[in-house]
């Protein structure tokens, strides 16, 4: 009876999770959706407390108080620019929790002498491996995004792929050992240690601009680890919620890969983002004598004659924290009757939706943020496009040169607008390490400087003019 009540409550929680995620389909309903999801979680947690195997609440209360305090502080203190790191580390905690629960379940089964069937042991091994990979992979991703301990650039060494495969096989081998001999509890922890190494090795070679894919993939893993733990405990609540999240992460991963025209294998293993040999020299040839530099005053005049402006933000805007001056620019131009919109590339920034969050923080209405396809279909009518801290995602080489590392990647076609303004510190290449002929195009003006200062100066010039 008690067990039925618990399971029905888990069903209710699962339905609330689905409604919650459905609410995220529109900014208007999203806040409510998130709250519905939280209510589902609260129901699941409260009803679990009546489970008859719980005999003491001491540890539970300590754990919940400590966890809530840490989680709340992190969630409230983090600036919006630090969001990629936070999402990465939260994924890791989910994976870590799963590996602890699976480990505890295996030990418990051995102590109480309850059945350790094949389903339980296989699921324990899977939960331990995915959990450890998620935890350590997320930790490395966090360090790369925060730029502490590990370099944000790809870290590569010879024999890397062979080593990865050997480590993976070792983890699977130890997992198989647990299935054959469930009494070997210590083997579980050896397996977790090996899988931890795998998590580190898998994320270390991945460069900064490929982080959206990694963060989405780890998001998916954290869900799959929870689902696997559900199979360990025969708990439907875990299976349903975990697989919803697993599916969500997989969709985002696919979207990110498509937006770069690369396969998941290429993102994970190719180590893109290192030095491209001769890149600088090739850049000099392309740029020589063709770069037109502009000033804030000149730019203010160009904008005054415009009717439609498209702003294309990239990771540089996040680094310079230029979103608030950009909002001022948006307001200034709108006041003068100029239509201003934003074109957001799916992989701009360091995680899916990164630019949207920053612009929302700066109070830009979300209906002004255009998706790539829509922005491109309207680019012919745009008088001035302003590229702010983006590079590879506006590089026309992706369309024209099939041998380029970004060949076939969908880009925002700013070169089709009447005038292009590129705000950038220098002519240095973007993440792909290749020169950008857009900078040398006839209709392009380069406005050199730090993103934030450049926009502030531009705003001042517009006010004066």
């Amino acid at each position: 009876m008690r067990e039925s009540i618990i399971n029905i409550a888990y069903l209710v929680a699962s339905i609330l999770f689905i409604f919650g995620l459905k609410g995220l389909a529109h900014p208007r309903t999203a806040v409510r959706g998130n709250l519905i999801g939280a209510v589902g979680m609260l129901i699941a947690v409260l009803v679990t407390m009546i489970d008859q195997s719980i005999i003491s609440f001491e540890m539970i209360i300590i754990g919940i108080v400590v966890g809530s305090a840490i989680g709340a502080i992190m969630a409230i203190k983090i600036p919006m620019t630090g969001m990629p790191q936070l999402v990465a580390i939260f994924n890791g905690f989910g994976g870590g929790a799963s590996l602890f629960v699976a480990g505890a379940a295996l030990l418990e089964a051995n102590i109480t002498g309850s059945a350790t069937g094949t389903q339980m042991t296989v699921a324990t091994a899977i939960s331990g491996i995915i959990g450890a990979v998620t935890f350590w992979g997320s930790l490395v991703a966090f360090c790369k995004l925060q730029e502490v301990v590990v370099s944000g650039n790809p870290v590569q060494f010879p024999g890397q792929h062979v080593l990865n495969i050997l480590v993976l096989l070792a983890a699977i081998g130890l997992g198989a050992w647990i299935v054959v001999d469930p009494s070997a509890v210590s083997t579980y922890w050896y397996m977790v240690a090996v899988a931890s190494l795998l998590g580190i090795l898998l994320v270390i070679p991945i460069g900064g601009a490929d982080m959206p894919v990694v963060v989405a993939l780890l998001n998916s893993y954290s869900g799959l680890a929870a689902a696997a733990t559900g199979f360990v405990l025969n708990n439907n609540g875990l299976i349903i919620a975990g697989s919803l999240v697993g599916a969500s992460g997989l969709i985002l991963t696919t979207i990110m890969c498509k937006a770069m025209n690369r396969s998941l294998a290429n993102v994970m293993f190719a180590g893109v983002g290192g030095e491209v040999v001769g890149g600088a020299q090739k850049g000099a040839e392309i740029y020589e004598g063709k770069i037109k530099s502009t000033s804030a005053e000149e730019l203010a005049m160009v904008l005054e004659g415009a009717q439609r402006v498209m702003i294309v933000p990239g990771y540089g805007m996040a680094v310079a924290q230029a979103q608030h001056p950009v909002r001022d620019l948006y307001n200034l131009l709108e006041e003068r009757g100029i239509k201003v919109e934003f074109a957001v590339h799916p992989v701009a920034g360091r995680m899916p939706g990164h630019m949207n969050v920053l612009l929302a923080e700066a109070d830009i209405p979300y209906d002004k943020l255009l998706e790539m396809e829509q922005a491109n279909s309207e680019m012919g009518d745009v008088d001035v496009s302003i590229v702010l801290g983006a590079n590879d995602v506006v590089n026309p080489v992706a369309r024209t040169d099939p041998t380029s590392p970004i060949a076939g990647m969908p880009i925002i076609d700013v070169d089709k607008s009447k005038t292009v303004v590129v705000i950038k510190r220098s002519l240095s290449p973007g993440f792909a390490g290749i020169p950008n002929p857009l900078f040398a195009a006839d209709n392009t003006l380069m406005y050199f400087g730090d993103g934030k200062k450049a926009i502030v100066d531009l705003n001042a010039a517009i006010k004066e003019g």
Partner: protein
Amino acid sequence: MDIFVISLTIFALSIFVGFEVITKVPPTLHTPLMSGSNAISGITLIGALISAGAQHSTVTTVLGLCAVIFATINVVGGFLVTHRMLKMFQRK
């Protein structure tokens, strides 16, 4: 029916429900989607509560406690930060 088959059925169908629901989320909300779904994956908390409360041995209790802390960070932090972000989108 074998309990494993039942679990597997639930797993497979949930994946499809996930695909259907998530495909409708617009790119502008992809970050809150990640943090919000991540909070949901903190559902491991309910398994952790049982480990921490059952007290089969000191080791399982400590593992359970660690799991409760990790999962609670995930749940509380995840829903909270998602709420913070979504509020910004709602302002208009």
